[in-house]
């Protein structure tokens, strides 16, 4: 596998990492755009599969980045994409922890949190929109997401059970149609 692809992975994931306020959820739209439209590394189909498997597998959702890297360039790709995504934020946390201890005044922390919250909200919706479009942008896809969100807002259900439920419903629909 060529070195150019690995560098391209770095150039895609380092900037995303640097502004990933709120974690993976807020970066999904940009990841989709970069990997499909800009670089043509994966198809819509791959993107759906990677997103679904990352959410269904154990562990942090950031697994999605590792899977994209793996799909693009094998084990090296998985390693490089993961490092590109984890290292910049980890350095910031390490540096931040030192500054944090020095300034214990919490007034401005709370203001920063409130200020970043709407940005994260907008980005999460952009990610949802990207996923649902990849699934085909059908009414069924939007309805599924709507029902799943409604259930979770109504009851604090285990998300993994909800994902199994979604899989079961789709399997039944597939078998009986």
């Amino acid at each position, binding site marked *: 596998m060529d070195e150019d692809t690995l560098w391209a992975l770095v150039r895609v994931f380092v900037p995303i990492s640097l502004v990933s306020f709120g974690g993976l959820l807020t970066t999904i739209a940009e990841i989709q*755009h970069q990997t499909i439209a800009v670089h043509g590394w994966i198809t819509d189909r791959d993107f759906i599969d990677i997103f679904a498997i990352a*959410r269904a597998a154990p562990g942090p959702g950031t697994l999605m980045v590792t899977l994209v890297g793996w799909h693009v360039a094998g084990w090296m790709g998985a390693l490089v994409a993961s490092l590109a995504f984890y290292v910049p934020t980890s350095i910031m946390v390490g540096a931040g*922890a030192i500054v944090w201890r020095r300034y214990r005044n919490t007034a401005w922390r709370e203001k920063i949190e409130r200020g970043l919250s709407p940005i994260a909200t907008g980005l*999460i919706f952009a990610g949802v929109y990207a996923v649902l479009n990849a*699934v085909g942008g059908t009414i069924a896809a939007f309805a599924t997401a709507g029902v799943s969100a409604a259930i979770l807002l109504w009851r604090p259900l285990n998300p993994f059970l909800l994902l199994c439920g979604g899989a079961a419903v789709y399997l039944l629909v597939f078998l009986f149609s």
Partner: protein
Amino acid sequence: MHDDTSVTTAEPQHPAVRLSELAGVFGRIGLGSFGGGLIAWIHRDAVERRPWMNDAEFLSGYALCRILPGANIINFAVYLGVHLRGLIGATTALLSLVVPPAIIGIILFQIYERYHGIGAAQFVLDGVAATAAGLNVATAVKALRRSRNLLAATVAIVVFVAVGILHWPMLWVVMVAAPASVALAWRTESYG
């Protein structure tokens, strides 16, 4: 209760935490967690069951992890690792959290690729993806409900349109929108 600068004065004193114990805690959290809620597990392991951090340190660290970019849980693993054992602690915590799930995820993906020619497999994953998108919607809706602020909702919509529909680069959108939004939060108490 001393809520003063006790943390600022010196290196926190901890009984030397073994790296294997740190790896065990985060390895278990990484593999045993599905679909989020991991921070509650860390609280139990690091504050309630072990003398690694007190509640104030935990909450303060968690606030930092939420303000900085990156997934909260990943950031907190690094934070706790640094807190306990410095660089080597951070590396251990991070790797234990992400590597085992990554290997499982790749294996799952390889198994899936063997069968993805089957229509049912694709259809089922469409269902999982759409359901998972709904989980994300729930997260965002909770944040919106908490704020109920029109200006904040407008900022969220502008960011959504810029990144989701116009596909402007996220880096630049956030670099412009984040300071503006924090400035608004500074001015308005109900913003957020």
